[in-house]
Every structure is written in C-alpha cells, then in structure tokens.
C-alpha cells in the first residue's frame, strides 16, 4: 500500500470516527430527554394523585424573559457555527463568548425566578404540595445542562488561530451547537409543560 493511499485511508477513517462521536451526542440527548420525561411523568402521576396538588400559582414573568434569552442564544450559537464553517475564527470566538454570556444571563434569571416563587411562599423544602417542589427540580436539572453547555462553548473557543484544524473545529462546533439547541428546546418543553399545568 502506498503512503498516499494510507494517509487518505486514515483521513477517511478519522471522519468516520468523528461521525460516530457526533452520533454519541445525539444519543446522550436522547437519554437526557428521557431523564426529563421521567421527571415530568413523575409530576403527572404525583399531581393526579390528589386534587389539592398542582402548581396552584401563576409562573413568574422571569421565565418569559429567560425563554427569550435562551432562544436568542440559539441564534448566536448558530452564527458562531456559520462563522466557523467559513473559517472566520475571530467572529466564531466572539459569537461563542456571546452565547456563553447569554447562558449566564439565563442562569441568573432562573435564580431570580426561584426568588420570586420563594417570596410567594412556594418553597422547595417542607412543601406538602410536591408539585411545586417539582418546578425547582425541573429548573435545577436544566441549569445543570446549561452549565455543561457553557463548558462545551468555552472548549470550542480557539486561541491559537494559526493552528486551527478546520475539520476538528467544525466537528467541535457542530457538537456544541447541537447540544446548545437541545437545551434551548428542552427549556421550552419544560416551560410549556409547566404553563399547561399551572
């Protein structure tokens, strides 16, 4: 076998393996979604058990704002991905940082929403109506995903622009953006679920 065909072969193999790794991210999202499906069906089973259970309050407005923010961050994520594909690494970095910042803003707003709920006397602990405690569990589990997403975003940043391997960069961006869009959609699912049950 010639050296040329060998390198080409390994190049192809590498792409194959990247495809398989990207697929693992999809699978991870499936399992993560199942986790939330478990929680939300737990909510349904629990709430249906007794008429006194349920959210029994109007959800804080903060959730509307945070939903807008996370939707916006999906847009900046996509812009980062497009920039990376066009090999514009500087603007890729800028959009990634912007996305991460929006993620942090989202996190802060979610915390403030908890504060609003807490001030209404809807506490996480010691609450005989655990349907209300579920709100905290949904948000906290989702925030854990946001933190993971921010870590992925920071990992996708490129500091030595001269040394960027475009193929691996695009792969990393793709994985990051798939995940980020997923947690965006995940929050919308959770929020709509809560709205339908309030």
């Amino acid at each position, binding site marked *: 076998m010639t050296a040329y065909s060998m390198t080409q072969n390994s190049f192809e*193999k590498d792409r194959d393996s990247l495809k398989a790794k990207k*697929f693992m991210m999809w699978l991870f999202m499936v399992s993560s979604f199942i*986790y939330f499906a*478990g929680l939300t069906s737990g909510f349904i089973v629990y709430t249906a058990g007794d008429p006194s259970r349920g959210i029994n309050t109007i959800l804080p407005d903060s959730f509307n704002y945070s939903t807008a923010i996370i939707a916006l961050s999906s847009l900046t994520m996509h812009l980062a991905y497009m920039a990376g594909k066009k090999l514009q690494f500087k603007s890729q970095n800028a959009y990634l940082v912007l996305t991460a910042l929006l993620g942090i803003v989202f996190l802060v707003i979610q915390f403030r929403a908890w504060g609003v709920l807490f001030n209404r006397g809807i506490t996480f602990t010691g609450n005989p109506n*655990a349907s209300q405690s579920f709100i905290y569990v949904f948000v906290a589990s989702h925030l854990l995903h946001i933190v993971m997403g921010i870590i992925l975003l920071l990992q996708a940043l490129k500091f030595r622009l001269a040394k960027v391997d475009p193929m691996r960069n695009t*792969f990393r961006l793709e994985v990051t953006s798939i995940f980020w869009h997923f947690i965006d959609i995940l929050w919308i699912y959770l929020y709509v679920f809560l709205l339908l049950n309030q």
Partner: protein
Amino acid sequence: MASTAIQHTLEHSGHSHDDHGHHHETFLTKYVFSQDHKMIAKQFLITGIIMAVIGMLLSILFRIQLGWPDQSFPLLETFLGKWAEGGRIKPDFYLALVTIHGTIMVFFVLTAGLSGTFSNLLIPLQLGARDMASPFVNMLSFWFFFTACVIMMASFFVESGPASAGWTIYPPLSALPQAISGSAAGMTLWLVSMVLFIASSLMGALNYISTVLNMRTKGMDMWKMPLTIWAFFLTAILGVLSFPVLVSGVVLLIFDRSFGTSFYLSEIVVQGQILPQQGGSPILFQHLFWFLGHPEVYIVIMPALGITSEVIATNSRKPIFGYHAMVYSLIGISVLSFIVWGHHMFVTGMNPFLGGVFMITTLIIAVPSAVKTFNYLATMWRGNIRFTPAMLFAIGLVSFFISGGLTGIFLGNAALDIPLHDTYFVVAHFHLVMGSAAICGMLCGVYHWFPKMFGRMMDDKLGYLHFWFTFIGAYLVFFPMHFMGLDGVPRRYYAFTEFEFMKEWLTVNTFVSWAAIIAAVGQIAFLWNFFYSIFYGKKTTQNPWGSNTMEWTTPIEHLHGNWPGEIPTVYRWPYDYSKPGHSEDFIPQTTPFSQTMSSNLPHDFEGNPEAERIQIEWQKKQQAEGEQGV
C-alpha cells in the same frame, strides 16, 4: 506506516496530534488507563468476577443464618465483629447482606460485568472496527464503574453499616436516615455508587450504539451481524431509554433524604416523632424505579441470550434456527419490556383495570421468549453437537430460561401474583430466569472467548466440573424455594423460627444452604481455571472453535486497531455452518462466494443477477465436465 494510520484512527477527538508515529505504551496506559476496547473488556470482566465472588460470599453468609438459625459460628464474629456478635448474624446485618447481594449481582455483575465485558470485546471485533466510537469515553465508563464498586464496598466500613432497604430501595425506608441503621450513611453511599454506576453504563451504552450503527466494516449490513451484536445493541438501547428514569427517581429520593422535600414521604411517625413531610407518594418511586427496573432484567438477560445464540450455533455446527425470528424476538422483548413495569406493583392498590393491562403485556412477553427457546432447541436438533464447557453453559442457560420463565407466567397473572407476592416463589423465579440463566450466559461467554481475550485456552475438565457443580447446585438451591413460596413463606425474613407455619421449612433451608455452599465451592474450579489459564493455559490456535465470526480473523497477539492491515470485508451472514457442498463445516464471514462455488445457493445472492449468472454458468460447466468424465 500502518501503525501511524491505526493510531490516527484511534485518537480521541480534540487531543493533540503530537505523538505521531511511535506507540509509547507505559504500564499505566496499557493496563490501567487503557483506551483499547479489548483491555477495557478484560478490566470489566475481572472486576465483574471479583464482585461476583463478593456477592456470592454475602449470599453464603445469609444462607448460613437461614440454614442454621439457632447455631453459633464463632468464626463469623472473628470476621464480622459486631455484625455477628456471639457468632450469629444480626438481623440488621442480614438485611444489609440481602440488599448488597442483590445490588452487586444485578448491577455490578450481570449488567456491567456482562455487557461491559462482551459488548466491549465483541462489538468492534465482530463488526470489523478498529475500536469503539470514543475510546476515551469507554475508558471513563470503566473507571466510573470501578469507583462505583469501591464506594459500594466502602459502605461495609461505615459504622451504621451498608444500605439495608432491599435492592429496590423503596422509600420511606430509604428516604429517612433515622429509619433503620442501614438507612443512614450506608444508604447515602449506595445512592452515590449507583449514580456513578448509571453514568458508567450510559457512557458504555452510547458507545455501543454509536459503534454498531456507524463503524461496521464493508459488507457488514445490519442483517449480517451476529446475534451477539444484535443483543448487545438492543441491550444498550434499553439502557439509554431506561436508566435516566432511575436517575430522576433517585434524584427525587436524594432531595427527600437530604433536603426535606416530600416527593415520596407523607404522614410518617418515627419513634414517636411526627415527621414534617406531608403529601408525598411512595408509589411514585415504585413507578419510576420499575420503569427502569423491568427493562433492567432484560438488560441482564439479553446479552446472555445473544452469547448463547452464537455459542449454540457454533457448537451444534448448524446455522442458527430462525435468525430473523431471533432478531425480531429480541426487538419484541425490548419494546414490550417498557410496558410491563406495573406487574411489580399489583399489590400497591393499583386499579384492577390497569393491572389487567399490565398483566396482558406481561404475558405477551412469553411469546418472543418462547420463540427464542424453541429456536435454540431447533438449532441443536440433530446438530453435530460438541460439548465444550461453553456449550454446556449455553444449554444450561436454555434450561434455566425455560424453568424460570414458566413461573414468570404464574407471577404475571395479577390474581396469582397477589398471594405469591414477596414470597420465596418470586425469589425462585427471578434467581432461575435472570440470575442463573444470565450467569450461565456470562460463563458461557467467558469459556468461549477466553482464547480471544488471553490467547490461551481454559482447561476443559475443570470446566465440566464447574458446569455440573453450578448447574445442579443452582437447581438444588432455587427449586425448593418454589414450594416454600406456594406455602406463603415471605422473602427477606431473618429466621424461620418465630412462625409456626414456617418451622417445617427449616430442614429445607438447611438443605438449600448446603447446596449453596457446595455450589460456591464448585466456583473455585472456575476461579483457578480462569486465573491459572491466563498465565499458563495451553496456547490457542487462530480459530479454536471453527467459528465464522470476524473476531477469529484477528491475530492472537492483540494489537491496537485489531487488524494489522486493512479490515477484512464481510460477504455472508455469520451462520454458514455445515453448508452442503463445502469442504469444511464452516465458512467464515470474510470468505467471498467466489471461493465457495460448490456450496452457493440461489438465495445467497440476494437477487444480484450478475452473481446468479456467474454461479449458473459455473454449475453448467461443472455439469458438463462431470458428463465428460462419465
């Protein structure tokens, strides 16, 4: 050059390209933090075997208590200290023993030890891949598992003892640290260990699925995959879809335990104290637990079924009977396993109509299970059977699967389950159908693929000895339990001395304990055989069992990337055993049809007209030559 290419392939994404060319392997990267799927498989296997021995010893401890409840064994006090004061195991510790025995056996041995070993070993080797989709995540998977094992064992060294709420850890017992001593620190460690374990098995499952779907070699379409791979693949899917639900259940449990929420707790009085938690529902936990818990038993048995399919076909020298039916029955079991969890909850005050639905779905599972059983029998029927130790264990699995499966039909009926619930009948049922059957499948795999893993053979005679001790021992242990259960003897009871109606079962318990001890002693034959053969066993040949699958085309000496040159192409399904017209009784998957003209059949070409034309021309030519000869 070849090694460069292979290494490049194996490299984990995002890591540097710095060390091109040479392969520097230190002890640490080769044996400890290995990213090679074959080494990770061995790590899973040996950890699994160690955990299995621990789980077995725990069971012997509680069998001693059940067999001789009034007798004192001073030796126990020497080893267990305050857990066996006066040489008798304490009730608290008895509960811890059954809990940890169950946890270890179900999760650490039959989930991680079985799937972890054989999925890791066989998926890349039988599909023709250089390694897993992500070798790095694969390594993490093992180390999470190992850490989980260490934490679970560490719970024996905390003052309040290991978790004792049973392997199903139902709240409120598991949710209130003050409930019993086993609900304190031991329960916390149990939960931490299980979270790590779930993370490990998810990482493994993601890898298995992605590798099966993306990294098959040329020619290996899904319908040419060996049944082992189908089983591992579907098992991994079950894991991805069910384990996260257990996580959500456990997360809520952790909040109840440590943060004062009341998801599962309501109106509880402990030691005269009214607890503040109100409005929770313990049944909610059971739903979340069994939504994982039932698929989990198929996670345990399906890899064993896959391994058995392969071993039975190879050693009967016959194609597996009903390959497609085998695959569809695995798919059927996988789908059905998600809609039967309620049969664990018939006595929770479930609406009888809902119970009826769960009953019907449960009984339907008997259909794919029976399809598999009959296919095994039909494969062996009039086969040229070679009774290797692996084959004996495969037959053992079929036997246990039948005898344990039949009682599943009893228990699946709500009307019968209500009196039988939580009796020894249930213990007998699941120990036969998922305990003994799955462990037989695992041992079958160990005997069969030992030459592939270690390059040496295990000793056959010790294997036979091991098989008969295990097979007869398991039946003697678990079969009498059916009758105890029918008499209403409840499981998890510390001693049979306090209730009049249970006293007559004391002698049976002594018998069962003796059987368990003898079967356990028989395992020494295995352990000796296994560890001795790793170092001093007879050197293996390239393809010791005359098998068709691809793993036997790799060199005996392991190398990174599995095949030295290009990965072979696959041309045929894996079960061409004893094909009429061929000179040998097996044709490996990598043999093209052009080399087996004398044995090709019309349906081999899957409607490819060109290949059919060549075959017909060849046959005409042969015929003409034959006539000339006459």
